[in-house]
Structure formats: structure tokens, C-alpha cells
């Protein structure tokens, strides 16, 4: 009798970094859902670090997009400072769209996603775990890189904490919203444009409040209000997005 209770667990073990003592199935018992979620998160992080090159791509893309504006509009720092919030957020949005393709691609390809769906664990929680891992790998680095881009656009160093805060919170919402579109377009070839078309309208409130918060950070105003609204959007996203993504994944796997 296999120690893991099903041959399917063996697939997950081979593809991922889960140790022998820990599986989602734990023999004939169901592991507690938080353990399962933690495992899914750890697995995603470990797998991603094996392909470090891929992690850098969205960041490099963000840097290049930010560079387009001084070259295309004007190298004058005063003008760049004015448009800096917009440039940062447009870049962050586009970079996170790029990164969304990685969210489910590998797992859908090697069957892990199907195992998640069949495991009897709450797919909603597993989607939340995957999205959390995705944010740690893309959104958080973006938030840390944003100040560098902002400085290159003539923003003063005093604005840095506010910028990091607003991009960090906003990118959580972007990852959550993006997970829905990514789940809906699973397996569609060359779905990049469609994924953007689906995700961007839903991301616009995040863009609006995020840019507002960043602008207030730059001008030194009170950014608590838009930041709180961003946080409210995150809360809304955390409660609804994993649910929608789980439903979408089940539909895509049918």
C-alpha cells in the first residue's frame, strides 16, 4: 500500500518539493486545510526559485516600461515627476499582467492543478495560497523596485515609503484579480491579449486608487485615505477572488 494513499500524490511529489512526510492527502486522512494551503504556497515558492531567471523577467519588463516614458515624452525631471504615479502604475499593471501567465501554467501542464481540484481540499484556499505565492514572487519585488523607478523619474527620496506601501498593497489586489482571468483562460493558446482584456477592466479601481496614493506620497500629502481604499479592495479581493478563481479552474479542467 503506497504510503501516500494514491498514485496521484506521487505525481505531486515528483513535480514539487514536498517532503515524504507531508502531502495533501496524508494517507487516508485529509490534512488540515491550512497545512495544505501552506504546502501549496511553499511548493510554489520552492519551484519558482529553481527558475530564478523567470522571476526577473517581470521586473526587467517594469524597468524597461518605466524607461520608455522619459525617452518618449521628455527627459525633464520636473515633467517626469508629474507623470511619475501614472508611469509607475501603468508599468506595474503591465508587468503583473505578464507575470500572471506563470500563475497556473506549469501546474495545469503537469496535472498538479487537477490534483488540487480532486484532492477534496478546499480549492478556494489552494487558489488563495497560489495567489499569495505569486504575489510574494512578483508583486512584492515590484513594490521594492518601484522606488528605484520613481527616483529615476525625479521623485524625492522622502516619497519612497509611501510608494512602496501603495504599490505593495495595490499589487496584492492585482494578483487576486488577475488570478480570476488566469483561471478562466487556462490552456488557451496565446491567451496574453485576452488575459489582459479580461483583467484590465477589473483592475481599474486598483489603478485609480493606487495612482492617487502614489501621487499623494510624492507630493507629501495624506495618503492614508486612498491607501485604506486600496486595502478595502484587497479585502474584497481576498474574500471573492479565490472563490471565483476556484470556480473558474474547475470549469477549465472539466
Amino acid at each position, binding site marked *: 500500500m503506497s504510503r501516500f494513499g494514491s498514485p496521484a500524490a506521487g505525481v505531486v511529489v515528483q513535480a514539487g518539493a514536498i517532503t515524504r512526510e507531508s502531502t495533501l492527502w496524508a494517507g487516508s486522512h485529509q490534512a488540515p486545510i491550512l497545512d495544505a494551503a501552506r504546502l501549496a504556497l511553499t511548493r510554489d515558492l520552492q519551484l519558482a526559485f529553481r527558475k530564478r531567471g523567470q522571476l526577473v523577467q517581470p521586473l526587467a519588463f517594469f524597468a524597461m516600461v518605466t524607461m520608455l516614458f522619459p525617452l518618449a515624452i521628455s527627459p525633464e525631471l520636473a515633467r517626469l515627476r508629474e507623470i511619475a504615479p501614472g508611469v509607475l502604475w501603468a508599468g506595474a499593471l503591465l508587468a503583473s499582467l505578464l507575470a500572471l501567465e506563470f500563475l497556473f501554467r506549469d501546474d495545469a501542464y503537469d496535472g498538479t492543478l487537477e490534483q488540487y481540484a480532486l484532492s477534496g481540499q478546499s480549492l478556494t484556499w489552494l487558489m488563495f495560497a497560489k495567489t499569495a505565492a505569486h504575489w510574494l514572487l512578483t508583486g512584492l519585488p515590484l513594490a521594492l523596485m518601484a522606488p528605484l523607478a520613481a527616483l529615476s523619474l525625479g521623485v524625492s527620496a522622502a516619497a519612497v515609503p509611501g510608494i512602496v506601501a501603495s504599490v505593495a498593497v495595490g499589487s496584492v489586489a492585482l494578483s487576486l484579480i488577475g488570478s*480570476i482571468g488566469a483561471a*478562466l*483562460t487556462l490552456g*488557451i493558446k496565446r*491567451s496574453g491579449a*485576452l488575459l489582459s*482584456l*479580461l483583467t*484590465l*477592466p*477589473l483592475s*481599474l*479601481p486598483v489603478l*485609480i*486608487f493606487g495612482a*492617487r496614493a502614489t501621487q499623494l506620497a510624492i507630493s507629501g500629502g495624506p495618503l492614508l485615505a486612498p491607501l485604506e*481604499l486600496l486595502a478595502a*479592495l484587497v479585502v474584497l479581493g481576498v474574500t*471573492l477572488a479565490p472563490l*471565483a478563481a476556484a*470556480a*473558474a479552474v474547475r*470549469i*477549465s479542467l*472539466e
Partner: protein
Amino acid sequence: MTWTWFHRLGSPPYVYGLATRLTPWFAWPAALLIIGGLWGGLVLAPPDYQQGDGFRIIYVHAPSAWMSLMVYTTMAIAAAVGLIWRIKVAHAVAASCAPIGASFTFAALVTGALWGQPMWGTYWEWDPRLTSELILLFLYLGYMGLRAGLEDTQRADRASAVLAVVGVVNVPIIHYSVTWWNSLHQAPSVMRLAKPTMAASMLVPLLMMLLGFTLFFGAVLLVRLRGEVLNRERSASWIREIVST
């Protein structure tokens, strides 16, 4: 109370037959109301005190805008019904709605721009209403794009249904957030036609157009619905009779 009529609405052959029979009852009243509304709006209604004859764009702009929102709501409700109760006919209704809604959203944006230029001095403004309407167009296009990208009809139905429902949650958020953002930036003054104070000679054609467009939506929906129902049917017997006529 018997629910038979409700259960029959889930039966594709019954719906096909009902749609065929009902279409003229929507199409002809729609035609009459639209023609009557056009006559009333273009000829009978007096020119506006402020906007002159330019205000007559309202008779095509307001109905188009109304259509864009009403059709999306219908689509979202049908999608939700199809998703929750797994009723194919509901998915067929949702699929039928999208092209209609998208085309009238486009018409609303264009007619709005043509109205905006003489009245506001610009074809476009990033104010809440215009921006929300543009986003609505993208929601429609995304919905149709997702359907087109998925070959399996059942998966397309269910995936686009999730999208439609999530999109509905988004519409009030977008509208509210854009209003909030605009108020921080001191919104430019927006001219509004105060409907309750409209003269009857102006208001009646508008109501006729609104009702006429709604009935038009019903007629076009019924025609499209028949095709969508056929697309989702595999069993031969009732289809054979339909296509042989």
C-alpha cells in the same frame, strides 16, 4: 401555483418554438414605437432653449446607453442562472445578449461624443459616466473574446458566465471609484438634462424610443436565442423537424 411554465423554459424545443412565435410580438411594436419616437423627437418636439436642435441626439443616445446597461444586466442574470442551476437555455440567452449589448455600447459612446463636441467643446471627457461606459464596452469585448477563445461550448458557457458575474460586481465599483477620484480632482461641470423637468412634447418621444429599443432587444434576442439553442442541442428528433422546414 404551478411551476410548469418555469420548467418548460428550460426545455430547448419549447423555448425554440416560443421564441419563434414571440418574435413578431416584439418586432412590430418595436418598429412602431421607434418610428413614432423618431417622428416625435425629430419633427414634433420643439428645439431646446439652451441646446437648440442639437439636443435631439438624446433620442438615440439615451436609448443606446440604456440598452448597454440593461443588456449587460440581463446577460449577467442569465449567466448566473445558467451557472447555478446548469440550465443550457440560460447560457444560450447570455450568449445571445453580448453582441447586442456591445453594439449599443459602441453606439452610446459615439452618439455621446457627437453630442459632447457641440455642447461641452470636446468629443471625450474622462468623467465617470463616459469612463464607465467605455469600461463596459471592454467588459463586453472580453466576454465575447473569452467565448471565442474556448472551443468547447460547455466550457465557454461556464467560463464566460463566471466572467459576466464578476464583471457585474465590478460595474458599481468602477462607477463609484471614478466618481470619488474625480471629486478629489475637482470634477469639471457636467451638463445634464434634468429629465423630470422635460416638457411632455420632448419626454414622450424619449419614452417611446426607450420602450421601442427595449422591445427591439427582445426581438433580436429571440432570433439569436433560437440559433444558440440549436448550437447546444445534440439530440436529433426535434431538430430534424425544425431544419427541414
